[in-house]
């Protein structure tokens, strides 16, 4: 069973903080990888917060192909951070030759925000397709102020490899969503590691989605960015994106889509017409199975909720300067030992918890 975690802080934090959140939660052979999405970046990227940042891992040929593609499509390179790895012997990491984090400026002729969003998505999809065809690398995100790092191996060794223990001020962010396990149930595919990212939405899931097939069959027709489906947890992200970004519904309706209320409870609600209609039309986006999710939204808010039977745990704790969300409380105890634990929140099966930019916690029952 994987564990998931997230940190939202008023002061930018290093990725090591996320590792300290995750490592105490290790059980058995959970720690088979490391993947994180950082949002609201500081350090080397602080000057380029409004410029899209490409996160990828590739071969030399892959790097050349991407450069050629970006030039051809009028993206101007502004800055790049290429980590110099610490190649100690005996590190448990399946590293690729290059990790590239590069800021670009938009092509001049694309000015409207919506057109830019579409362009960034289409570019990422095109790069992914290109690299997949040649087997030369992986592109994880291409979005302003968002960095994604994923690798296979022991998270401690991966952190050593990328100097994440050094806290050297290069990588800093106010929001980090993290997970330390590869998809051990199936062949290990880098794209199958959470968190997943799409147009500003980041999502990590712990558990199982037994409606994977019906979700996937439906999502494929909803939006061109809903691809891959290497993991049943991608369904959660795509539905989040669909409800908030495509349908533009308020966030409270996400939970109604993935774990709708039973019909008997719906019938008692004053807003039953709306909820019934949603349940009907989005029946194929319902999620079943034991699971918990942590999501990051484009505006920096974070959200967590769990399945309607509460078969997977999640806990939220904070000290006013930082809020952490984690599968198990031991992780939060590690990084926030002095918080008031009586204020920890263990969301119930119908509850949604949202943390806003001021670290205010909003919670409601669906």
């Amino acid at each position, binding site marked *: 069973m994987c564990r998931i975690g997230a940190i939202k802080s008023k002061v930018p934090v290093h990725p090591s903080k996320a590792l300290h959140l995750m490592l105490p939660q290790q059980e058995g052979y959970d720690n088979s990888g490391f993947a994180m999405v950082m949002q609201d970046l500081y350090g080397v990227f602080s000057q380029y917060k409004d410029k899209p940042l490409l996160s990828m891992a590739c071969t030399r040929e892959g790097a050349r192909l991407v450069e050629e593609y970006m030039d051809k499509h009028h993206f101007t390179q502004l800055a790049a951070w290429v980590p110099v790895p610490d190649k100690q012997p005996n590190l448990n990491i399946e590293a690729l030759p290059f990790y590239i984090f590069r800021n670009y400026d938009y092509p001049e002729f694309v000015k409207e925000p919506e057109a830019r969003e579409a362009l960034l998505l289409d570019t990422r999809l095109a790069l992914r397709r290109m690299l997949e065809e040649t087997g030369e690398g992986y592109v994880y995100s291409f979005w302003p102020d968002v960095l994604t790092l994923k690798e296979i191996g022991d998270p401690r060794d991966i952190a050593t490899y990328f100097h994440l223990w050094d806290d050297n001020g290069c990588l800093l962010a106010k929001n980090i969503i993290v997970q330390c396990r590869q998809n051990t149930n199936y062949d290990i595919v880098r794209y199958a590691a959470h968190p997943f990212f799409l147009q500003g939405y980041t999502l990590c899931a712990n558990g199982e989605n037994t409606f994977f097939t*019906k979700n996937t*069959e439906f999502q494929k027709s909803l939006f061109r960015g809903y691809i891959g489906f290497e993991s049943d947890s991608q369904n959660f992200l795509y539905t989040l994106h669909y409800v908030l970004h495509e349908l533009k519904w*308020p966030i409270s309706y996400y939970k109604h889509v993935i774990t709708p209320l039973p*019909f008997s409870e719906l019938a008692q609600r004053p807003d039953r017409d709306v909820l019934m209609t949603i349940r009907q039309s989005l*029946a194929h986006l*319902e999620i*079943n199975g034991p699971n918990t999710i942590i999501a990051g939204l484009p505006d920096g808010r974070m959200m967590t909720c769990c399945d309607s039977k509460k*078969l997977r745990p999640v806990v939220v704790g904070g000290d006013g300067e930082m809020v952490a969300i984690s599968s198990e409380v031991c992780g939060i105890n590690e990084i926030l030992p002095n918080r008031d634990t009586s204020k920890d929140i263990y969301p119930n099966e119908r509850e949604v918890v949202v943390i806003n930019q001021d670290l205010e916690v909003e919670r409601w029952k669906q």
Partner: protein
Amino acid sequence: METIKVQDVAVNDLPWRIEYHAERCTRCGSCVASCSFNAIEVVVQRQSMTVSEQNQPSPVRRQLALAIIKQKKDLAYMCRGCGMCERVCPNNAIRPVRNPDDRKALLSRDNGPIKRGGRTNLNAQRTLDSIIVGRISQMTDPALDSVRHTFDIRAPFGRVLSPRELPLTVSGDKLEMAHRTPPVRWIYPLIFSDMSIGALSTRAWEAVALATAYLNEKCNLPVRMSSGEGGMPVKLLESEYLKYFIIQIASGHFGWNRIIKAMPHMVTDPGGILIKIGQGAKPGDGGLLPEAKVAEHVQAIRGVPKATLSSPPNHQGLYSIEESVQKMHLSLNAAFGFRVPVAVKCAASATSVAVYHNLLRDPYKICGGFFIDGIQGGTGAAAEVSLDHTGHPVVSKIRDCYLSAVRQGLQGQIPLYGGGGIGLTGNAAADAFKMICLGANGVFCGKVLIQLLGCIGNEKGRCNACNTGKCPTGICTQDPRLVKRLDVDRGAQKIVDYVLAFDKELRKLMAPIGNSSLPVGRSDALVSTDKAVADKLGIQYVC
């Protein structure tokens, strides 16, 4: 040598032979009285016997005239194997035995095509039995507890809009409905399908209706019952219970005169309307109610004289799907103020996917369900050639329709209901569950209901006499003496008990795959031990 006329029908030409033990027979006459087909009679037979009537053995050969039970050598009065004689015999002296060498199919076409009721006897193969619920939650995720957990077992009946078509507007952090959407009822995924008053005896129909009402009122299971083509009692039309019924309109429009007259007096809307285009047991044929079954009350409900009632194969005046949508769907929707879902039932066919496609593109959004009826569906009366040689299996057809909707991103918009053979082996819940995993929203069944009432017909030629008006169980006849054999309350109770068990069995199947609501389209939960079936349905082959 005795002259034999080989054209004469002999008992060994008939599909069932009566095995009679004169030595056990008390001559009570119960078997003869109970045989609704008049297949047996009392005759006096001369027998040569050796008897001993003294205290000491004193065998004497005698010629005796004995009353015995004898089977008639006549196709018009042939034994149907119903076994009523065996049921009533106090001494186990008589029973029907299947005759493997029967020549009935050859000999009984003197008066035209063979007619019968029941199901196909030729294509009763069971695709569903080669499918197993094979994706069980083991370690990676917990199975649910079928007893402790709650399950949401409901299916939509009505036209579902795509998410982008919903009239929802954002007001603050809430969504509001700008205007109403097509009516959708969430019902139990098992519909009691269309058997008319006429095809069934009034009492049998009443038993099914009683069970429906009980399941709704007392068991919180919103099971719907389709009226069949033949109308409904006015009292029921004007009662609160109408909401549990789906009123059927078929090509003969039987009963609709009364329904329309009752409309101003209805106190609630019906559960739905079902336009019957075709039926799986005899696709391309209209309904058929033989004169023998058109009793006085049937004449009254349908507004017809005593005559054989043949519905036309098509709805008159319709020649395309679009036109059907425009004329029939629209007018039936309008008749009930667009408050009642209107669905359509077709016989499964090689063309079902095309019809479903077309309906999905209906711009008025007024088709509220597509019912596909497979070749293993039952009927009260049909030509045997239709029953055995026309039709289409429903399992792959449901799958084809679902997958074609998936390809267009339209799955779920017109709910799919599959029927025809559901519960053929008595295990309706397993059949329903597998159909749902393949893409059906729910299933409908008829034959299993009357079997619960007492029908002893099967797919091996047993009875199949629903068309004769001589149903030995009182279910498919209007003969009051036969109808008396049916205990309405006990019959209704059998159906209720069966559906309650069905519900528990559905949970028993949902729990191990970890689903609390119906796994519509969850084909990954199924595996098949038949490679061809697996390939056709797109599920995993296992061995």
